[in-house]
């Protein structure tokens, strides 16, 4: 049991982070907090890739001519790309939140839903745009 917890501690950290992030996305009504949750969730995936590349006793993959074991650099490179994607997503998400604030005057999800219900009803009644 102890081995299951300590021996695979990296996965436990990843799982906890992932669930925390997803929970924030689902449970929070504040649109900015949701994006932060999304960030936590994505970070767990970055850690997942990085930790799976670790080779026990391995060092940074720099060729020195000596006989050494190296960690696998490929997942690290991949995750650099994923970090860029994540930053772009965050930036775009926050930009949309700013626009939502301008259009609805709130960034609380339930209040926006309420206003959209009104919008949907006035579609039927023939509100002039």
């Amino acid at each position, binding site marked *: 049991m102890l081995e299951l917890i300590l021996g695979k501690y990296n996965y436990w950290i990843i799982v906890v982070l992932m669930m925390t992030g*997803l929970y924030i*996305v689902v449970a929070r009504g504040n*649109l900015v907090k*949701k*994006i932060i949750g*999304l960030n936590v*969730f*994505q970070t767990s*995936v970055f850690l*997942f*890739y990085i930790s*799976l590349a670790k080779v026990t006793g391995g060092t940074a993959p720099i060729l020195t001519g000596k006989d050494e074991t190296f960690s696998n650099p490929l*997942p690290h490179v*991949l995750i650099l*790309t*994923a970090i860029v*994607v994540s930053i*772009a*997503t965050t930036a*775009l*998400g926050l930009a*949309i*939140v700013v*626009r*939502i604030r301008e*259009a*609805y005057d709130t960034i609380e999800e339930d209040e*926006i839903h309420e206003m*959209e219900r009104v*919008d*949907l009803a006035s*579609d*039927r009644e*023939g509100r002039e*745009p």
Partner: protein
Amino acid sequence: MTAGLIPSVMPHLPILQVVVPMLAAPLCFLMRRGTVIWGFTTLVTWAAFATSLALLQATLADGTIRYEIGGWAPPWGIEYVVDATNAAVLVIVSGIAAVVMPFARRSVEAEIPANQHGLFYTAFLLCLAGLLGVTITGDAFNVFVFLEISSLSTYALVAAGAGMDRRALSAAYNYLILGTIGATFFVIGVGMLYMVTGTLNIVDLSERVPALQDNRTVHVAFAFLVVGLGLKLAVFPLHTWLPNAYAYAPSVATAFLAATSTKVSVYVLLRFLFMVFEPNYGFMAMTLDYVLLPLALVAMVAASVAAIHQYNIKRLLAYSSVAQLGYIVLGIAYGSVAGLTASILHLFNHALIKGALFMALGCVMLRVGDVTLRGVRGLGRQMPWTMAAFVIGGLSLIGVPLTVGFISKWHLIVAALGDGRWPIAAVIVGSSLLAVIYVWKVVEAAYLQDAPEGRVVREAPLSMLVPTWVLVLANIWFGVDADFTVEVARTAAMGLLRVTP
């Protein structure tokens, strides 16, 4: 000069397919005048369409093309792989873009503020490049990167509808949250596959994963990939982002996205499900039978019922898209050559149907500015060509003979009956009857109700009618003479399942 140019360009078509729209995108941003940007974008989409046709012809003649980027051979480099399946998807994506673009000029001028035109076309081309990249690449991680390029630009395209309706913003936000979760799930799955196989190349994966059918990590990777892609392609309970995104995006964006983006996700699902995992027994085969199949059936009925209750016609068609994606997933869940043929066929046919319908609605939006059932009252007489296009598209959606909708439903039902699953065939027919109801609601408003007093509406301009009718006639053409599309779909299905003819 030209004689020497063509042979030297031919071997590089796979990379040009993606790089041309991608490099053209920032140029749009630099240009000032709306018409110039539009003309440039149109030329780029036509070039992309020509490239994809050449690729399809080359794959049908010579088989699979493998292109090593920068001369780096796999497993180190990324390779692009073009076979019958993705060549067909490339043709769908770039073909729809090439038809939508001539239509876009008037529609974009009417719906998007002038200072945002450059950004809109930039996002459009990036989305196109992303979708083409997802389709053509042979590297699992590269799929994720292109998926995010197309998704990020899609969120921007949806949000561009904010000038018309503020709900475009919250729709884009919801899509961003769910789309990102979907893409992240996908990348978790890819990471786990890399963990057990040590490769990201899809061809290599397809050689190593089937030997690991009972590996727990592979099972988890499978689950993450299916759920992640399910979010992207709007499988029934994961479809909630779709109706609002399609309803409030600008008409041009809706017509393009409805016809292409979910189709590309379906393609990725097909590729991973059948080429990499080969679900023949156990956990993965049960996922097809007990998860995807029931969800597809529920989607076909529930989304059609939801469509009947809509008042906004774009939203109505969006729910109908969820139902139609149910048909596609149904064919995938059969897991047989006949089922996959029907799925791939409907991929193409549904792109034609929804492209035509949403473009007809774009014409209504331009002239009336209202795409609800109230807005289309009396349009049957005031905009006869537009509404005729909508009616033919609607008949195709229902699956009336001589239209493409009939061809795909016929193949789906034959595939169901071939396995003796006649209750499924009954659900397909039942769901088509529901489609009759929601298409009729629009027809009734347009032809049987009178136009509001004093509303003067002219027919849509030719620059919009011609592209719409090109798709409408394609609906009829491929509905009458389906030999070619069925042949391509069957070749693709057999390629995916590795069945030799």
